[in-house]
Structures are given as structure tokens and as C-alpha cells.
């Protein structure tokens, strides 16, 4: 050994390290095999499958109404939007016209869900950077949304509120009042987020210029949602292919062109403002009417293939249903945004420090069940 050192034979070596599946900042059971040289990350190999439940296989045995509750368990942070995606697919296939009231409520619920998810992302992102207080402020504000959900839907996280043709039940009489209260409350609290984290020079140094992803790379890797929009990839399905009541609201797509961690951060913060705008425009105009369209108790889709794209919180979510005319689908494929987003992690994290890898992972906002399905 000593001779080797003195002769200079002992070269610097890369060493590999396992991050996860039990690690505080992999946000679940993601395992990353890292190759490090000192503190510098040379390679990231994500290993998936720790909560692979075979949801696509399970869906082949369930009726369309029953699939809904499984989509909750994909990206649990945007459960409502995922439910909506399946419902839209079924409604498209059957060519059912859902009442306008349903469309409005679905959109509002979806946007509330988006805010709630971004709040949790903000907490977790702060934690990833080491600012532990953010976690509690974010959760405190998220609680208000969860209370709104609980009052109307009865669940807080796994909502299962949409059913093919409409909604599980009508909104609670207090719903509109509470949503408006929440928006006035959160408009006051959101600047606090900026004061605590966004403006912090340590945070800015940690995120600016870190984890670069160009627009071309984002498109090639299929990185969509806020992560893609941070790179200037205009991929908001709500704008390009409006569904539900998004065409009735006036809002803009948040685009940042830097492509670094800070840009992705800013996109999400701005999206919270924009989501509040959408809700404010719609909340007073919910039309009267039925909360569900007339549907047969047994839903059989005509033979064919149906694809729906919606904008889930973390990116574009797609439902691909192949039907053979039975009451259960022949094949269901969920295009989950996180799965595609994860594939770009290796590209972004190379030649960065370990701490940056955590920041990048936080800014991509991974939800592991969504990847594993």
C-alpha cells in the first residue's frame, strides 16, 4: 500500500454509493445508484420498481368505474386530475356530453389540487435544501385546501371524486365561500414563501445554473409540466388542447427559458398564482345543473382506442385505453409524467455535486408511485 502511494500508482477512483430506497430526500422509495468522484456526481442510475403494483394489469380486470380509484394511487398528489383523465377518456369514447356544471367543478377541483401539490412540493424542496421551516408553512396552507376537499368529497388525498359522466356528489353548499376565503388567505401567504425561500441568496446560489436542461433536451426526453416549462418547452395541455372548463378561463402559460433548477422553482411558484387566477374566474360562475350526466350502470366502450391528455401537476398525463367492447378495458396504459421526467435526471445531475443532485431531484418534484405504477 505504502509503496503504491509513493510510486503514485494509487489513482483517484470513482466510488459508487446507493442513494435510497430509504433516503430522506428521494421522496419515496426511489433508489439511485450514484458514481461519485469526491463530491462530484459522475453517473446516476435510477432503479425503479420498489412500489410497482401492476396497476395497468389490474385495470384490465376492473370496470371503468372501478379504475378511477386506482388512478388516485398513481400520482397521489394530483389524484383529482388523474381521475378526470380517465373520466374524460370514457366520456369521449361514449360521446357523452357532461353538464357544464361538472366541467367547472372539475376544473376548480383540479386547480385546487394543483395548488395543494405545489405547496407540498415547496415544503419538500425547502427541506431538500435544508430549510426545514418551509415544510411546516407549506403544510399549514395545504391544510386549508384539504379541508375544502374533505368537506365536499369526504377524502383528503385519494379523492376519487370524478366518475364517468360527472361527479360522485354535488359540491357542498359551503364550497364556494370556502374556496374564496382560501384564495384571499393564500394570496397573503404566498409572498411569505418568497421572503423565506425565493429571495434567499443561499437558495438562489444553490439553484441558479444548476441542473441545466435545454429546451431541445426537454422535448427529446419528454420532460413536460413545470419541469419542461422551466426549460422553455411550451407543453401546457390546458393551453394547447383545452379540456373541461379551461377554455372558459383566461390564463397564460408560465414559461421560463433558463432551464435550471431556479427556473423550475419559479414556474411552480408562478403557477400557484395562475391557478388562483383560474379559480377566481370560475368560482362565481359555476352554472346550475346536474352534477352528473345520465349514464348506464354498466359502461361498455365501443371497440377502438382512446387517448386523453391532461395536464397533471407534474406534467402531461395520458390515458390510453384499448377497448374490445367489454365492460373491462383490453389494455390500459398510463403515460405518467414522472416516468419521463426521471429519464432526464442522469443528464442534469452529471458533473454536479451531491447536494445539487438533491436540489435537482427536488425541483423535478418526483412522485415515485407515479413512475412505478
Amino acid at each position, binding site marked *: 500500500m505504502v509503496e503504491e502511494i509513493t510510486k503514485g500508482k494509487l489513482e483517484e477512483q470513482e466510488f459508487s454509493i446507493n442513494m435510497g430506497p430509504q433516503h430522506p430526500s428521494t421522496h419515496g422509495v426511489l433508489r439511485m445508484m450514484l458514481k461519485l468522484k469526491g463530491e462530484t456526481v459522475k453517473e446516476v442510475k435510477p432503479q425503479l420498481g420498489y412500489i410497482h403494483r401492476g396497476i395497468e394489469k389490474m385495470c384490465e380486470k*376492473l*370496470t371503468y*368505474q*372501478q379504475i*378511477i*380509484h*386506482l388512478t388516485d394511487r398513481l400520482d397521489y398528489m394530483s389524484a383529482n386530475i388523474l381521475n378526470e383523465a380517465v373520466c374524460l377518456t370514457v366520456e369521449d369514447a361514449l360521446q357523452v356530453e357532461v353538464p357544464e356544471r361538472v366541467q367547472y367543478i372539475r376544473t376548480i377541483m383540479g386547480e385546487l389540487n394543483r395548488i395543494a401539490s405545489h405547496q407540498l412540493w415547496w415544503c419538500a424542496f425547502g427541506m431538500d435544501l435544508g430549510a426545514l*421551516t418551509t415544510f411546516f408553512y407549506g403544510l*399549514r396552507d395545504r*391544510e386549508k385546501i384539504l379541508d375544502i376537499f*374533505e*368537506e*365536499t*368529497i*369526504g*377524502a383528503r388525498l*385519494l379523492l*376519487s371524486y370524478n*366518475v364517468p359522466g360527472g361527479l*360522485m*356528489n354535488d359540491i*357542498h353548499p359551503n364550497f364556494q365561500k370556502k374556496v374564496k376565503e382560501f384564495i384571499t388567505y393564500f394570496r397573503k401567504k404566498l409572498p*411569505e414563501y418568497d*421572503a*423565506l*425561500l425565493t*429571495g*434567499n*441568496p*443561499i437558495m438562489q446560489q444553490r439553484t441558479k445554473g444548476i441542473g441545466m436542461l435545454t429546451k431541445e433536451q426537454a422535448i427529446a426526453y419528454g420532460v413536460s409540466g413545470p419541469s419542461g416549462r422551466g426549460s422553455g418547452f411550451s407543453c401546457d395541455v390546458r393551453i394547447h388542447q383545452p379540456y373541461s372548463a379551461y377554455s372558459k378561463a383566461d390564463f397564460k402559460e408560465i414559461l421560463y427559458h433558463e432551464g435550471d433548477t431556479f427556473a423550475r422553482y419559479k414556474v411552480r411558484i408562478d403557477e400557484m398564482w395562475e391557478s388562483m387566477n383560474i379559480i377566481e374566474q370560475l368560482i362565481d360562475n359555476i352554472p346550475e345543473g346536474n352534477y352528473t350526466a345520465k349514464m348506464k*350502470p354498466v359502461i361498455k366502450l365501443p371497440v377502438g382506442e382512446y387517448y386523453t391528455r391532461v395536464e397533471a401537476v407534474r406534467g402531461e398525463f395520458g390515458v390510453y385505453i384499448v377497448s374490445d367492447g367489454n365492460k373491462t378495458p383490453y389494455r390500459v396504459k398510463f403515460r405518467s409524467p414522472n416516468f419521463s421526467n426521471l429519464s432526464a435526471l442522469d443528464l442534469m445531475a452529471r458533473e454536479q455535486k451531491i447536494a445539487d443532485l438533491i436540489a435537482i431531484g427536488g425541483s423535478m418534484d418526483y412522485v415515485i408511485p407515479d413512475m412505478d405504477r
Partner: protein
Amino acid sequence: MRSIINYLKEIFGAVAALFKGMRVTGYYFFHPKEIVTQQYPENRATLTMFDRFKGEVIMPHNENNEHKCTACGICEMNCPNGSIEIISEMKVNEEGKKKKVLSKHIYHLGMCTFCNLCVKTCPSNALAMGQDFEHAVFDRSKLNKVLNKPGSVLMKGTE
């Protein structure tokens, strides 16, 4: 010289921004009224869940110990997880007709995902969602519940 000024500016800007963040946490430190923690086991008496809260599936009974379940099995069919089992028997009623009568409505709470489909699809509104959320037990078998109370019968007029 300019670089020195920029250097100093940078430092003062950073310190000012840091202080802005400290003001937020400092504010909450001196305002204990902003505390949002719920003292859970202590506030049991005042803690009420929302009416629609999906805590568990229950079968409401009226004061005469009657329920509305006709043992049709639709909830069992609609449950995606197989958490409902219905055991029924054929009985002859007063009019001399043979009829399906519920003997046991077994509900596996441990398998339930609270998707609300059983409540929604029940043709006679026999099921409802209860607001109880304290389900922890020491033995898994205790999560298997029989929803109809012993001795209960079908409510008159329910088909």
C-alpha cells in the same frame, strides 16, 4: 474600485435578503397565536368530522333495528377490492313467497379504499359512509366487520 463597490453591494444585498427571511420566522416566534397544531387526543370531545367524511362503510339501522339491505349483491359486485361479502339465505315470507334475506353483510375494512362505489350504487340506499376514523386495532381479524346488527330485519317497504 467598481468591483469593490459591487463586492460590498453584493454583501449588503445578501444580508438584507437573509434578514427578510429571518423576519418571517421571527414573526411567528413572537406570535404564538399563529400556532395551528391540533391537540388531537385532548380535543376528541370537540373534534367533529365533516358530514361527508369517508371513514368507514356503515349500514344505518332505525330504532326498530331495521336496515334497508335486500342482499342484492350489487355492492359486492361493484367493490374493486373485494372488501364486501354478502351471505344471504332464502326465506319464505308472510305472503308465502320465497325471498332472499340478508344474513350477514361482511365488510373487510382492511381492504377498503373508500372509493364510495358501494354507497353510490346501492339501489336501496342501505349503505352509508361513517365518520369514525379511529380504526386501529391490535388484531387484523378485528377489521372484518359484520355491518347488519344481530337480529335486524329488512325495513318494511324496501324492495
